[in-house]
């Protein structure tokens, strides 16, 4: 990297030298100013510079591209991700043609048609055929790109398959919280932002029986490989955005408006560790919508497991009610029996007692606050 700095410094020094030398030329020419004419000096030099920058630019862009390529994201780990990657490089390939063509023509013409004394420019005000050509060709290319992009976009944003693993991810200042539908019914319970407190971080509504076996995790998310995963995305306070770079997943988390994104991961964390040769490799979830001071470090680990490991992991997780049995108080009386199943035996009795003494409705509503 010091070489690069040295290189830039060199460019700077050379250009400074050029400036000084040119300045001296000017100072000389000031002395022999004549009449009304403004003669723009340095035409040859500037013309030549266009060619120098054209050639230099072509070399540096090619070199830097080849140099930087190793750090472009490794091959995507999701099915749609590989598709958008292909589309990206396909589009970039097409766009490189006008990029080179236009810059070449601009720089080359600037050099070629630089001012020559006694020369006259060609009076060439319009040509409808040419105008038509460069209206129609871009239009056709655009149509092609729109079509491929639209196909990919509508597939990616289509409804998630019914067998998709549903996981909720909630953004808050400054971390993510994952919530799973649980071991038994695999359905996420309802939520309400007014139920949020220090323990119940995502506002699980315990009056919904689906929520009894829900469990949350504030540091890592596990997903199974090879089948659709549907992320239900929420935010608690301000805008956040779920970004899983390797999965090519990005979707904003909006307070008051749940969003979603589904994808099929097809490489487990272990696969990627083997592929990248990095035993510490981990998928990461980041935030890409500015959300305050900790925006740059809203990290969550993402672990892609094979099906068996994933099932095992899910079954080992403590449900929310197991972790915080005191919330049993918020379960409506008629569902208590059902909820007891998810509460550790030793904690269940006092919790049930306390709910009985706090006289049902009033206690529940006060804890709603």
């Amino acid at each position, binding site marked *: 990297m010091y070489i*690069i*700095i040295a290189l*830039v410094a060199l460019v700077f020094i050379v*250009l400074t030298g050029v*400036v000084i030398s040119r300045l001296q*030329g*000017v100072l000389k020419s000031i002395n022999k100013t004549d009449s009304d*004419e403004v003669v*723009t000096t*340095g035409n040859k030099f500037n013309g030549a510079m266009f060619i120098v920058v054209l050639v230099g630019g072509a070399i540096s862009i090619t070199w*830097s591209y080849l140099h*930087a390529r190793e*750090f*472009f*994201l490794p091959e995507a780990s999701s099915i749609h*991700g590989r598709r958008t990657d292909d*589309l*990206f490089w396909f589009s970039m390939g097409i766009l490189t043609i*006008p*990029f080179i063509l*236009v810059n070449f023509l*601009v*720089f080359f*013409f*600037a050099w070629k*048609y*630089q*001012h020559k004394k006694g*020369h006259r*420019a060609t*009076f*060439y*005000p*319009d*040509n409808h055929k040419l105008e038509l050509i460069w*209206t129609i060709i*871009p*239009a056709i290319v655009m149509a092609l*790109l*729109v079509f491929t992009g639209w196909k990919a*976009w*509508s597939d990616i944003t289509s409804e998630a398959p019914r067998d998709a693993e549903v996981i909720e991810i909630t953004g808050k*200042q400054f971390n993510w919280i994952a919530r799973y539908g649980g071991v038994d019914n695999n359905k996420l319970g309802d939520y309400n932002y*007014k139920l*949020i407190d220090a323990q119940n971080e995502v*506002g699980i509504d315990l009056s919904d029986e689906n929520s009894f076996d829900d469990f949350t995790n504030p540091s890592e998310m596990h997903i199974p490989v090879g089948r659709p995963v549907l992320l239900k995305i929420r935010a608690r306070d301000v*805008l956040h*955005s779920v970004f899983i770079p*390797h999965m*090519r997943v*990005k979707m*904003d988390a*909006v*307070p*008051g*408006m749940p*969003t979603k994104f589904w994808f099929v991961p097809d490489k487990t964390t272990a696969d990627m560790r083997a592929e990248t040769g990095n035993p510490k490799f981990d998928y990461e979830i980041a935030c890409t919508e*500015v959300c305050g*001071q900790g925006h*740059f470090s809203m990290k969550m680990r993402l672990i892609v497991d094979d099906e068996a490991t994933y099932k095992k992991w899910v079954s080992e997780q403590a449900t929310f009610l197991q972790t915080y049995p005191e919330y049993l108080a918020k379960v409506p009386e008629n569902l208590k029996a059902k909820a007891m199943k998810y509460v550790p035996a030793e904690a269940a009795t006092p919790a049930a007692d306390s709910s009985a003494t706090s006289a049902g409705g009033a206690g529940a509503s006060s804890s709603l606050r």
Partner: protein
Amino acid sequence: MSAIEGLETAHHHADEHDHHHEAQSFWQKYVFCEDHKVIAKQYLITGILWAVIGITMSVIFRIQLGLPDSNLSWLKPILGGWISDAGKLDPNFYLALVTMHGTIMVFFVLTAGLSGTFSNFLIPLQIGARDMASGFMNMLSYWFFFLASVIMFASLFLQQGPAAGGWVIYPPLSALPQAHPGSGMGMTLWLASMALFIVSQLLGGINYITTVINLRTRGMSFDRLPLTIWSFLITAVLGLISFPVLFSSVLLLIFDRHFGTSFYLSDIYINGEALPNVGGSPILFQHLFWFLGHPEVYIVLLPALGITSEVIATNSRKPIFGYRAMIASMLGIAFLAFIVWAHHMFVTGMNPFLGSVFMFLTLIIAVPSAVKGFNYITTLWKGNIVFTPGMLFSIGLVSLFVSGGLTGIILGNSALDIQLHDTYFVVAHFHLVMGAASAFGLFAGVYHWFPKMFGRMMNTSLGQAHFWMTFIGIYLVFIPMHYVGIAGFPRRYYQFTSYDFTHKFMDMNMFISVAAIFTFLAQFIFLWNFFYSIFKGKKSPQNPWHSNTLEWTAPIIPGHGNWEGEIPAVYRWSYDYSKPGAKEDFIPQNIPYSQTPESNLPHENELIAIEKVIESQNFNDQFKTHH
């Protein structure tokens, strides 16, 4: 109605007539001045000062990003408590810097500084008018801008720091003071400043439109207007339609912040408290914001393209290629600008079908843009190009506009935007196509019209050196930034050490920062050249670039009223450069066809007959004299 108004202004002018021959006081002449030329210079100088502040901010956060280990204690005298004792930049202040850099550059430099300067300066001079339709409103426009500037500047010194939610100030972050220190007083001042700024833009815009439509001189039909004027007119229309929408979004945000409404707020739990607001939508703000925000891109860019058209034609000594196609493409871009805003919102959870529609509309913009690019190239073709600094910057603009515009085709594709949204790819894209390209338009305009503004010439060699350093520097900054973006680096990150996927490209980020500092330093050449030449530059001749447009027929330093005696009539378009048969390689717009029989085209000979009619018209200059 208009006749009566005309009479009234006539009386008004008659009253002023005597008045102006007395020596004007300093305040009237330079401060509360109604003369469009002085107002233009006020805009320009204010814009330059803001640019210095805005670009300095970018250098500070580039040091943070590219040289994260550096000790910034030396900035303590300026930034005080924002630099920790260990010499580190405060993360909250980093966000404030990013936010203010965006706000300042987009609104105060490239909207006010570019469009404000050149619309004011060139519209009356190029269409042949004594001044703007309403000098008073024009003055108000500047002073509202000044007030907005003062408030925004004051917000930089707040203890909690200025606004810090990104220049797009998305709520709820910007609506909740408890969410971020920058969302407190800093945001209040930001909103107040922007509200005043919008008032300023509307006062200016109405004036530009009215002046172009009503005050054109004899013979200056719409198809003889220079492309600069077309671009200013279209820009003003864009601003007039879109700025009020920003105003409404700002107003609703103020309501949400101070009066307990819930336009943008719903289901929020923050700092241990569930807020009572329900039913609002943060997405609504984004729709309203980008309904301005996207046209704003063209409000910034179109004047630059207009200036470039004029400068490229003049210095290629060729007519601009496809004059009508240029106007049509500007109109097309302006129209499309209003129906593509949601391409900033592909991944906000907006209905995916809307995403498809906006992707389609967005990619259509590439077509008129391509037409413009190719027309510039054809204008260069077989020209006789003089590399004045203005010309160099115009050529540079074409290159930047195309290079940066092409990546827009990637980002406009919603499927590809999923990965690239809010990464450095976006930052690189819009800095090239809108930031740098428009800044180049600003430079081109300053170099080209400096002689008309100050009656002196800027130093050509310094200008050329400034161009090459800036041009190379810009590419050195933003090409590598695309790579960083493709690697997935998110924008507005204080540092890249928290993630494995951003734990690379240290050298690339350092390179970008060094190149940014280099480019920043190069701007001092311009600053010196500009301020030195105002006082000590070589005296300008009448028409230094041998240009055809009307401003060069006015006195070298035009007085109030621009032309002494009658305003010249216009008989031809402004692009008769290198016409076959003509003696000189340019024929100014005020030369009748009857005087140039040797170079007239057949249909132009027929126009000789109506010259008498044009000459006898006198619709906006009742006195036939300057005052």
